[in-house]
């Protein structure tokens, strides 16, 4: 632990590219190991992290490239994990996207927006802000 009570190396700076998804997931998984988290919670967090990172990798800088910062923090009261994604790409609030209609049949289904929708449903909170030229998206989940 460092001065702020957070594990060391709790921040990953990485090129926002799809091929780096396994690195991002390994980074988060590594920090979740040794916590009291259940397998189900861990899987929900990894799915959410995947959805957000894939979004950034696909849209934030297209057609150019840039970095994403992923930070993981733990708090004791309440016992929760916070994962923050930052990028300097186009301002984009994925939470503004309309939720998909999950009652439609297979033939009528449009798949867009499902990843963000799943993230909103499985995390305790998902917040977005645009500040100092940065997209900041924060996931919180009690563990």
């Amino acid at each position, binding site marked *: 632990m460092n001065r702020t009570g957070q594990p060391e190396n709790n921040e990953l700076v990485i090129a926002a590219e799809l091929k780096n998804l396994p690195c991002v997931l390994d980074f988060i998984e590594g920090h979740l190991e040794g916590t009291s988290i259940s397998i189900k919670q861990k*899987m*929900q967090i990894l799915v959410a992290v*995947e959805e957000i990172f894939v979004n950034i990798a696909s849209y934030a800088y297209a057609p150019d490239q840039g970095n994403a910062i992923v930070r993981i923090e733990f708090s004791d009261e309440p016992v929760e994990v916070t994962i923050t994604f930052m990028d300097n790409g186009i301002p984009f609030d994925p939470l503004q996207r309309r939720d998909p209609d999950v009652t439609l049949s297979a*033939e009528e289904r449009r*798949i867009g927006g499902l990843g963000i929708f799943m993230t909103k449903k499985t995390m305790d909170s998902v917040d977005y802000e645009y500040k100092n030229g940065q997209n900041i998206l924060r996931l919180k989940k009690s563990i």
Partner: protein
Amino acid sequence: MLNINKQAENGKLVIALEGRLDTTTSPVLEVELKSSLDGVTELIMDFEKLEYISSAGLRVLLSAQKTMNNQGSMKVIHVNETIMEIFEVTGFSDILTVE
């Protein structure tokens, strides 16, 4: 990482998945399904060893379900609790036949 095991017999195809069906691995399953669904009337997806699924995996399942709606039936079996919850949240539990 995703392992795909296929067993085909008289129009019945069982695909057992092991690992994670995510953005990185879903295209592999998509290609596999595209090349093996010809003449299949009964598709069974065995999720016993599948740990998790993201929206990329759901897309592939939806596309397989649409194909099978036109030529037979599809069933997903041995779904774990985490994946079942994802199916429920996304309405996929109504689209797919989950046993």
